[in-house]
């Protein structure tokens, strides 16, 4: 897929590349081509977030985690050659695939944020599950589409996280 794109992929090519028989591909993925592509996209997404977690897992608090996460994820996304190519040349193929795995990605990010929120001073009225859900969704939205935020700039990421993301969620120390 990285070499030829999603649209051109065939089971024969996958088998040849992996050095196995066509029958082996079908035994592993009974759904054939469609299932192979789905598994490959899912694998790439899982790898992306595993790498991201390694980048930022040692962040001392939620705000720092989100700030570093946005900057690191954006950098990874922009330098992800296979994804950028797919978005340029076959967005109709890749975007629905990513949309299909997105609920699981939201679940994963939400779980991570829920455990982080347990160590924060929450503002009155905040329900941790709800806050984690909202933050996970906004975090992922910002990674894919930063809009007018320049996430190459750690200072912008800090303003974004401490304002739009966390102002309603946790008690942040006042500056100074």
């Amino acid at each position: 897929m990285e070499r030829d794109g999603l649209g051109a992929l065939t089971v024969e090519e996958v088998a040849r590349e992996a050095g196995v028989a066509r029958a082996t591909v079908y035994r592993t993925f009974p759904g054939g081509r469609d299932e192979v592509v789905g598994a490959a996209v899912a694998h790439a997404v899982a790898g992306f977030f595993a790498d991201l977690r390694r980048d930022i897992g040692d962040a001392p608090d939620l705000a720092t985690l989100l700030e570093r996460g946005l900057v690191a994820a954006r950098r990874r996304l922009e330098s992800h050659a296979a994804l950028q190519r797919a978005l340029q040349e076959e967005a109709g193929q890749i975007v629905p695939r990513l949309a299909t795995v997105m609920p699981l990605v939201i679940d994963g990010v939400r779980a991570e944020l829920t455990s982080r929120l347990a160590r924060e001073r929450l503002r009155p009225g905040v329900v941790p599950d709800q806050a984690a859900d909202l933050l996970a969704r906004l975090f992922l939205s910002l990674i894919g589409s930063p809009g007018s935020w320049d996430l190459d700039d750690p200072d912008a990421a800090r303003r974004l996280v401490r304002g739009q993301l966390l102002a309603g969620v946790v008690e942040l120390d006042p500056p100074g």
Partner: protein
Amino acid sequence: MHSVSDVTQATVIHDRLEVGEGAGAGPVAPVGAWAAEYLAAGDAERRLVEAALRCFARWGIRKTSVDDIAREAGVSRATVYRVVPGGKDRLVQVVLCHEAGRLFHTMDAELSAAETLEDLLVTGIRGLLLVADGHDVLRTLIRDEPELVLPHFAFHQLDRIFDLADTLARPHLSRFLPPEDVRPAAELLARVVLTYAFRPTPWVDPHDPDSVRRLVRTYLVPALTSPSVSEPSLSDRTTDPAQEST
């Protein structure tokens, strides 16, 4: 992180090889152009867009031809190409944009009547989520032709939606926020509406106004009104705790 097989099992979706090329590709319109186009649209264009939406509802996007749309709108083929020169992919964009704008404007009176930022956001978010929930045409298109619709809601293409959100929400948000805060606010609100429209959750239920109000009051109003925190002293503190003790 989930195992690959977990993810794989969830991955069965329409796979239509014939649209591989072209969908979602192509140059992105300059910032603001898309939204400005909506506002500047004449009656003929509106009629065309409404006709296209009816055709999409009847036959789906791929099976709708430019001739079908021209006939439905009672205009010539040449008119369709003049109004929407970019072909069908471009037409999908324009239709989505016009439809969003039309729906937004049906709420204009209600939004103008809001006396607080909280009321404004509750009205707007709830109204848009209700519309998304009940929009059979859009839901059918997303289900049956995701490869033609979803790219318009993802990655850099979302910039067009942000432009539209800014254009449509600015008059209302400006009553409560300083001008420089309107764009980021419109983007945040667009993200919130889109995520809960595409992937609903029980805790934000447009049929339960109180749930939307809790979302707005607890999380969104503080998010939009918190003072900017860019002071260097804060960044020193958070990145280097050792400095605090010196």
